[in-house]
């Protein structure tokens, strides 16, 4: 199994768990894919969180303003009708929980990782670009007639990145 596969499976599992636990929503299974780091136009809300350690990269959640408001309303049991500070804060926390859970799933394979404080952007027709040239692991979730896209890229930052030993005689299942 490759790190990419671990990340894609973890995004699907973590997203389902966070939506179910914090919002009481059963989100669909998600459609995984790999994308290259090409700048793309965005509309709506994008939340970023940095990952650092033996591997480093970025996780992000992209959704429409309507989905952002819906997430906020369900998480906080409030009535969010426009993207305000509370909505952005809810998206930041959603990102922290989902990518944080992916981080926890990855750590046994790649060693200890840290997370940055999330940053959320809301606007129209803006472009995002990571300085890294890595491939992005992407899972697209459909939610009624709308969407939620969760992306992550990770690259090793040092040669010795396999920090956690496995049991003696047990091969690592992940190709790092």
């Amino acid at each position, binding site marked *: 199994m490759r790190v990419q596969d671990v990340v894609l499976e973890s995004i699907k599992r973590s997203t389902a768990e966070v939506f179910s*636990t914090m919002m009481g929503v059963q989100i669909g299974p998600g459609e995984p894919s790999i994308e290259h780091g090409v700048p793309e136009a965005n509309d709506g809300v994008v939340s970023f969180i940095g990952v650092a350690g033996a591997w480093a990269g970025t996780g992000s959640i992209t959704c429409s303003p309507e989905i952002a408001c819906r997430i906020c309303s369900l998480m906080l049991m409030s009535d969010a009708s426009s993207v305000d500070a509370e909505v952005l804060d809810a998206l*930041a926390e959603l990102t922290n*929980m989902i990518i*944080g*859970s992916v981080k*926890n799933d990855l750590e046994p394979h790649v060693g200890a990782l840290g997370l940055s404080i999330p940053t959320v952007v809301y606007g129209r027709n803006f472009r995002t670009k990571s300085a890294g040239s890595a491939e992005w692991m992407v899972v697209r979730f459909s939610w009624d007639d709308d969407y939620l896209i969760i992306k992550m890229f990770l690259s090793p930052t040092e040669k010795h990145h396999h920090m956690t030993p496995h049991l003696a005689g047990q091969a690592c299942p992940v190709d790092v």
Partner: protein
Amino acid sequence: MESDVLIVDDSAAIRKILQRVLRQTGMAIRTIHEAGDGQEALEVLKSQPVHLVLTDINMPKMDGLQLLASLKASPQWHSVPVVMITTEGGETKVGEAVRLGAAGYVRKPFTADQIKEKLAGFLEPVLPL
């Protein structure tokens, strides 16, 4: 006895969710104070004595582990139970919290029942009239 609780998290969303959950636990809570990071929490504690602290780990300025260490080193606050509520699931930070004297740990995402179960030992139930 009614308790005073301090919630420490840089996410206003999480503070709001925890406020709601705490009010629904059926525990005798008088006041719930809030702080956005460890430094702010120490400021709140100067004027507001509390019986329980719930804190995130990853926060700007002063994180939850630094806050925990400060409280455990303080003659005034060392006996106040501190429960960590965090996305961290790794051995490193959770283990560090235990070594520093954390009274408990709840992983985000959490359910109201998980919070209630974890806090049952620290807060008293509301007595029936």
